[in-house]
């Protein structure tokens, strides 16, 4: 769950991290009001993805009229599929230097990494790729959190690459200690896998202000942050009900299915187990087909699950055939087969189905499928070839 900029900033402000004055506007009129109140403002599209500036979703304006005009333009935009529902109008800052300060999950270290760079204002991945020496990291103990000495080490390592800041480094390091500790605590409290301030602006007065923020909450922990999730959903959804998410994925989420859409593909893919389904997609592509989706029905493969999965996959009219790949651990092959036949008949499915399954009673299962006109496969690669063949050219 990726929060919008204004949500992230509200979280920052709540824990005492300085943010520029700003107002949320859902209409051009509200943007004009914000500019009247704040003076020169940046009008920023609120979408849960990066690259807004490059897409034209940010404008700096000097008057309420300009704010109204630019807000109207930006509110009509769609940025990489996300309709812009609101703009954040924010007072400008005087900038001495732009830093980066972030907390992010480091899988390899099994900890949150605290990251600081004097090269703020650009994507940290870009800095990592071009000049990794400009990024300093520490991995605080997850129970103790970052200690002052760790933050100082981090600060002196990062500031060593910013000669203009050499003189102020002691004061900056001292200011970064409580800021980094607060940011780390916020990440832990919100179950954030990414919590970053970029840029973190050093002003002429010597204060540090969070000029932009990114906050991503762990999906497994969403149950602990229902209010944030509800707020985000409200912010993303317009009167047309669209959220900017892929509509098929949004529907799958509502139905509680583990589904990823690959728009434009022609072969629906269903299986049990994430690794197995990923491999099913790989096999289809290997023999020249184009998978349309990933759908994992999880352990077991009862008739109900198979039916729900088929219904979901076939809701995309691009799907011209479905490959069902089931490893029958505990589930019996004949049960799976009966489930598939029943689902096909009840849903009135006309596109070709190829079912590959293994497990107890698999031969009986294959007989049931064949008798019902569904192609049974014995090996997964062979079944993949079959479905690609049946769906035909241009697959």
């Amino acid at each position, binding site marked *: 769950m990726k929060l919008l900029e204004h949500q992230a900033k509200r979280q920052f402000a709540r824990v005492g991290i300085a943010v520029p004055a700003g107002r949320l506007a859902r209409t051009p009129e509200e943007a004009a009001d914000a500019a009247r109140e704040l003076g020169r403002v940046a009008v920023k599209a609120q979408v849960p993805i990066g690259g807004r500036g490059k897409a034209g979703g940010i404008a700096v304006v000097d008057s309420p009229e300009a704010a109204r005009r630019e807000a109207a333009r930006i509110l009509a935009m769609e940025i990489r599929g996300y309709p812009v529902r609101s703009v954040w109008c924010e007072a400008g800052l005087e900038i001495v230097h732009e830093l980066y300060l972030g907390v992010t999950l480091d899988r390899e270290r099994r900890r949150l990494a605290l990251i600081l760079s004097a090269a703020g204002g650009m994507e940290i991945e870009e800095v990592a790729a071009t000049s990794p020496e400009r990024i300093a990291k520490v991995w605080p103990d997850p129970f103790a959190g970052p200690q002052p000495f760790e933050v100082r080490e981090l600060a002196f390592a990062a500031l060593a690459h910013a000669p203009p800041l050499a003189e102020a480094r002691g004061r900056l390091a001292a200011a970064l200690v409580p800021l980094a500790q607060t940011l780390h605590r916020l990440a832990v409290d919100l179950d954030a896998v990414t919590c970053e301030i970029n840029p973190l602006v050093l002003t002429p007065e010597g204060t540090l202000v969070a000029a932009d923020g990114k906050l991503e909450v762990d999906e497994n922990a969403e149950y602990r942050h229902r209010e944030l999730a509800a707020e985000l959903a409200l912010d993303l959804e317009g009167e047309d009900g669209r959220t900017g998410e892929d509509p098929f994925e949004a529907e799958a989420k509502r139905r509680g299915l583990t589904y990823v859409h690959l728009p434009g593909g022609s072969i629906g893919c269903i299986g049990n187990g*994430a690794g197995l389904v*990923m491999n099913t997609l790989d096999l289809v592509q290997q023999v020249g087909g184009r998978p349309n989706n990933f759908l994992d029905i999880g352990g077991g493969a009862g008739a109900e699950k198979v039916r729900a999965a088929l219904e979901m996959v076939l809701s995309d009219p691009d799907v011209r055939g479905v490959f069902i790949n089931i490893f029958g651990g505990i589930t019996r092959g004949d049960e799976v087969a009966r489930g598939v036949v029943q689902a096909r008949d009840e849903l009135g499915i006309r596109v070709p189905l190829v079912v590959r399954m293994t497990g107890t009673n698999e031969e009986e299962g294959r007989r049931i499928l064949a008798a019902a006109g569904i192609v049974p496969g014995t090996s997964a690669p062979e079944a993949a070839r079959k479905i690609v063949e049946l769906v035909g050219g241009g697959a």
Partner: protein
Amino acid sequence: MAILVDRSTRVLVQGITGREGSFHTQQMQAYGTTVVAGVVPGRGGAEALGVPVFDTVTAAVAAAGADTAFTIVPPAFAADAVMEAAAAGLRLGVCVTEGIPVLDMVRAAAFVQRTAMRLVGPNCPGLMTPGEAKIGFIPNHVGRPGRVGVVARSGTLTYEVIQGLSDAGHGETTAVGIGGDPVLGSTFVDILPLFAADPATHAVVLVGEIGGSDEERAAEWIRASGFDKPVVAFISGRTAPPGKRMGHAGAIISGTTGSAQGKIDALASVGAAVAGTIEDVVRLVGERLPGS
């Protein structure tokens, strides 16, 4: 020979009275695993599936002499259960729970590291030493005692590999499902040295998938340690689009990290045979097993 689990392993089950916990404990008992106790807070003194139930892991260890925990409790309580098992002095913990908040696991992993317990999982299918014992979900009929070690991130794909190796007559020493979460107790580099030290393991199958860099680190370990047993690798997710979570919480390509091709290249560069299909895995193992 085997690694981690064998006939002598004494298992306690955290969550033995749950629907899933009870079903899989029965499957484990049917396979021959020695289950000695269950732990369910508030249910101490009861009996489940023929074993005594205790309120705490410490009590279960004291009374029943368990050395291994099988943790199958809901996600909100799982990290705490793992820490309880580690604090009680167990040798091995196997946690199959899917959906644990990742920062819970960050804390649990740090906690476990300060104890003597080795953690496998979470969000994993568990492990099996064919003919001796299993802990977790691996279907009872797939394994067969033999010479190949299996270490894998995914569940069903692991069962397929085991089945294939068994059907071909190679069999397995031990199969370890390490799990599909971003933060795991054990990764490939924790398990490979155990197979290196096990004289009965003559070859290793490594099943990886997109996300993270555990496969790359495995390749680095193979190179640095001079591991000389044949390795056959299989990586799923070549078709996965960047930025999308493919079922497993950890199966996601982020920026330039975690692509299937990067993992395939890394493993191939240290001499692993990289298979395109499960059938290929079995064939490549057959060609590489010494004396076959």
